[in-house]
């Protein structure tokens, strides 16, 4: 190999990132080539400075990313809650008319319990592989740390008032309460969405 073949290998050589064969070729070339040896020396100090810079950058972004994990969990949580809500609203569509309320009072009660168990713990879609259940479980456990369970309970009762009883006026009040009491949380975000999509605006 001549100098032109060796020079591009020197960076990977410094990082110990060459195949044995390439490394041997570089080393035997370096023994007889002062030119490439000088390039190697320059590469070494350049790489040292580069690594110092990368380390400094990593240190200085640390404070910017302190709550990244929590933000990721919140976004995952919001998606799950929205998905779970969409699923049960689909199933409840026939209950949205006021005249159905009396007929389905008993069913509504049962659904209330159903909703209660599904908000913080959204159901895993049946088609997902079994392993996903464990991953979901992992997130769910973390959610209990970050989500305010009381806010979610209130949210569920507002959902029941709105979708099961069809009383948007009263539900509106409860959603607002959730927003007021839990600013900046997933629960407040869902409540605002409910308000913004409401057909009836007081």
């Amino acid at each position, binding site marked *: 190999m001549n100098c032109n073949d060796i*020079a*591009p*290998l*020197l*960076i*990977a050589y410094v*990082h*110990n*990132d060459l195949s044995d064969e390439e490394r041997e070729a570089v080393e035997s070339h370096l023994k007889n080539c002062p030119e490439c040896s000088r390039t190697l020396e*320059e*590469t070494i*100090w*350049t*790489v040292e*400075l*580069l*690594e*110092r*810079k*990368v*380390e*400094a*950058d*990593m*240190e*200085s*972004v*640390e404070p*910017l*990313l302190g709550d*990244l*994990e929590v*933000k*990721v969990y919140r*976004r*995952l949580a919001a*998606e799950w809650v929205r998905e779970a809500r969409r699923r049960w609203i689909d199933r409840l569509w026939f209950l949205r008319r006021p005249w159905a309320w009396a007929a389905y009072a008993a069913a509504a009660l049962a659904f209330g319990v159903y909703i209660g168990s599904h908000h913080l713990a959204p159901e895993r879609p049946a088609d*997902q*592989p079994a*392993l*996903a259940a*464990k*991953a979901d*479980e*992992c*997130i769910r*456990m*973390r959610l209990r740390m970050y989500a305010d369970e009381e806010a979610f309970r209130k949210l569920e009762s507002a959902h029941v008032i709105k979708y099961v009883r069809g009383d948007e006026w009263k539900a509106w009040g409860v959603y607002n309460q959730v927003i007021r009491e839990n600013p900046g949380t997933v629960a407040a975000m869902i409540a605002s969405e409910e308000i913004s999509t409401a057909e009836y605006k007081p």
Partner: protein
Amino acid sequence: MGEKRKRKLNIEELPEDEELIKRIKEGDERAFELLMRKYKRRVYLIALQSTKSHEDAEDITQEVFIRVFKSIPSWEPRASFSTWLYKVTSHLCVDYHRSRVRQRVESVDDEEAAVPEPRAEDLASHPDRVAEEREIRRLIDEVIQKNLSGRQRDAFILYYYGGLQVKEVAEVLGVAEGTVKMHLFRAVSKIREALKPLKERGEI
């Protein structure tokens, strides 16, 4: 081989990726957090190079981990985890630029990808080093932004900020290893030339 680079690049003493992924699949609640802690700064810095905006880079970083989390149950270790992670990151950066081109209402902002300076008090015991470090970082950033071709920059960023090996960079970028080595050689040579005056004045 990998060991040396990892130590040099100062990855925290966290479990290996394979171990973390196995634990996530088994439902270990802490494992996904550890995985994020391990990689968030690298993913963020790579996205920052591409977007030049803190908010967008943070958003992409969140989105990367959301996608990773959703894909982990079905993920099989055909390649290294970090290779896959940075592929997701590059795709999102490409998407980001596409959507920016579509909605290019805003004027072109020429802001540098500003990584915050280390606080002066951290280096306070060596006041002359503060200026020196700052100058070195500024020079290197300038070369990365202005003097590298797109491909050279991509390879360089994945190699140094991503902490990947040559063959992994080649896989993420979909090019030959020889091409990656050539890009790195050109990129580092340009940086070396930019730093040479400082070196010759004995300031480094």
